């Protein structure tokens, strides 16, 4: 059975969830890597791997969601709780621009004191500075909709009109409600997450999709997550990239141990093989470090993600991997690929400078 599934995948035929599960459970690491590599070159025939230069801005760490895996959030009264003011935002934008960055990954906690008007102004401010705003994961949008009494569609439309350029795929964790009930019961449900992405795609906003694996989910649930993404992509075509990463235990309540290097590479590979309709798969050097982050380029990833001028969420769990642009380029090139700087929508950045969208 394994042999037939490998043949099917080699020919680029779509796998059903049972086949994918069997492949994931039975195939050796390098067979998965080979299939993922084949799939990767089917999507992106050139030996090119991309990277982005952007900055994470977390506008607040106050969050009422209280997810068990999170080491970032604070309660409103906590001494280190913050809401980013305009001067700080301005300084971070200026620094990003001075480093050649063209985009901001703009996310924050579910903070009931911030209204949609405040968000619209912040987005417009960044947009007016010439930056592409890749912002608001689905749980933030669901939270805003509930707070404002608006539909998800209308919230996205207003943010888009304010200048939002695309939406990050965070907060997906595992899109199976059994799992979400356990690790993030107060956050957007599977159907709400999908509703945000469907509406964003219909409104012409591209998004990414993520998977945080290696906590309470089963392998079958990981595959179900991939299937959910693939089905929506069949419908809308709005996902640009898929980004899997392992849950990082640290200063949170979920504890446990982080998935190891081989689990990461296997999961990355099965994602590339199964998601035959998503153009790009990103390596997670932030969670994996430089070594596995680079090796991921041979296990289905075609993108190294961002240099992340600032990263706070994974760092708060005690994981501190850093990388500058030259280092990313060196890793891509010594892995045997041409390094290409891209924007949020995966278009090459010409000559290293590019006006924002």
């Amino acid at each position: 059975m394994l042999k037939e599934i490998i043949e099917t995948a080699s020919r680029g035929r779509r796998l059903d969830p049972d086949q994918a599960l069997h492949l994931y459970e039975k195939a050796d690491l390098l067979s998965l890597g080979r299939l993922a590599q084949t799939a990767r070159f089917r999507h992106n025939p050139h030996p090119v791997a991309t990277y982005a230069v952007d900055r994470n801005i977390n506008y607040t760490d106050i969050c009422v969601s209280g997810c068990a895996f999170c080491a970032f959030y604070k309660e409103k009264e906590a001494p280190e709780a913050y809401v980013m003011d305009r001067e700080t935002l301005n300084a971070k934008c200026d620094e990003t621009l001075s480093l050649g960055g063209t985009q901001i990954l703009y996310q924050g906690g579910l903070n009931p004191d911030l209204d949609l008007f405040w968000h619209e102004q912040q987005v417009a401010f960044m947009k007016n500075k010439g930056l592409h705003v890749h912002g608001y994961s689905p749980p933030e949008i669901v939270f805003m909709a509930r707070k404002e009494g608006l539909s998800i569609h209308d919230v996205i439309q207003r943010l888009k009109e304010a200048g939002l350029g695309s939406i990050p795929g965070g907060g997906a964790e595992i899109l199976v409600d059994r799992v979400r009930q356990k690790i993030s019961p107060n956050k957007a449900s599977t159907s709400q997450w999908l509703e945000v992405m469907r509406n964003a795609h219909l409104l012409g906003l591209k998004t990414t999709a993520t998977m945080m694996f290696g906590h309470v989910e089963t392998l079958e649930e990981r595959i179900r997550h991939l299937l959910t993404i693939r089905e929506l992509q069949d419908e809308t075509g709005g996902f640009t990239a898929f980004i899997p990463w392992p849950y990082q235990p640290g200063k949170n309540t979920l504890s446990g141990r982080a998935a190891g290097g081989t689990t990461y590479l296997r999961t990355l590979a099965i994602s590339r093989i199964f998601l035959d309709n998503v153009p790009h798969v990103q390596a997670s050097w932030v969670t994996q470090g430089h070594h596995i982050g680079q090796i991921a380029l041979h296990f289905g990833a075609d993108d190294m993600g961002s240099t992340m001028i600032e990263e706070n969420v994974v760092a708060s769990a005690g994981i501190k991997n850093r990388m500058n642009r030259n280092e990313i380029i060196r890793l891509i090139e010594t892995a045997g690929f041409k390094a290409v700087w891209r924007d949020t929508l995966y278009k090459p950045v010409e000559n290293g400078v590019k006006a924002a969208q």
Partner: protein
Amino acid sequence: MKTHPSITPFLPDNVLSRIADPAVQAMGEKLLKGERLEPNDGLACFNTQDLIGLGQIASAVKQSRYGDKAFFISNHHLNYTNVCENKCGFCAFHRDPHSEDAYTFSPSEAAELIARSPVADLREIHLVGGCHPDLGLDYYTDLLKALTGEKSALKLKAFTAVEIDHMASKAGISSLDCLKRLKEAGLSAMPGGGAEVFSKRVRDALFPNKINADRWLEIHGEAHSLGIGTNATLLFGHMETLEERVKHLFRLREQQDLTKGFRAFIALPFHPENTPLAHLPGPTGVDILKTIATARLILDNFAHIKAYWVMLGLKLTQTALHFGADDLEGTIAKERIAHQAGAATAPGLTRKRLVEMIEEAGLVPEQRDTFHQPI
């Protein structure tokens, strides 16, 4: 040369035919016919863009010998001194004798440390230090005797060829006589350190005071003649060329053809922190996997290829076990040398953690002794 089981069952047509790089594919065909690789094959391994293909061939060789097994040992690394007169350019461990943080353990202090080892079921002490200007041969023999003591199950893997050369010349005896004395005192095996890169160019630049390649190989040959099994290493990713790496592997293979006493090869990725070469980035993950896979393919007469977790990190070690490595060293307890150079791993791992890590990688852990026999 000892014949090995055929790799054919582990490198089936549907795998070989999908290897993207023709040079790597040709190597696979050579190995299927039982032919030995040549230096240009070694270079092709390093220059390939097909990391997976290279790994598949190396892994087929590993699997043909050991199936899904991955070996480890309950051991303790003990560095009896950090005083060393060699002052190598890649080293962050050595100290001058009068430096504030210089230390030398007396035999009884060393024995005390081992008595308090956190490692249960301890099987081996890995004992290396530096070229200390003042210690006599009696110190080393006393040290070995103090460490074996009553515990017959405990084996001593001690002293690199560099230390052997140093202590023999200080004592005014031949290295062969020195090895005989050490063997009588309890030496069971020798580690593979001090080989660095067998290149005069690199040696002159980075470690001019250290014994040269011929001498390192001579001492290992002598140890082999006395029935002392040894390991071999390659310190890579600093200023050596790929040709020099390949040459290094071929010199080891030639020596092994002659004296047959090498047990394991360990590729040591250079860690630049706190060394005079701190400006270098150190080898990448892809480079490390290629080096391990290439060693497996060229060193066809070496039984074991180690993925040394201290220097690789746990994630890469798991991966390396699928790129030709079959052994990941051991519990170690207290590693100092790589950690002085910025290794970010723990100084030791519990046996439980090693087992979990191997099982997560889809392999079967097997505890071994110093002589690579199962326990």
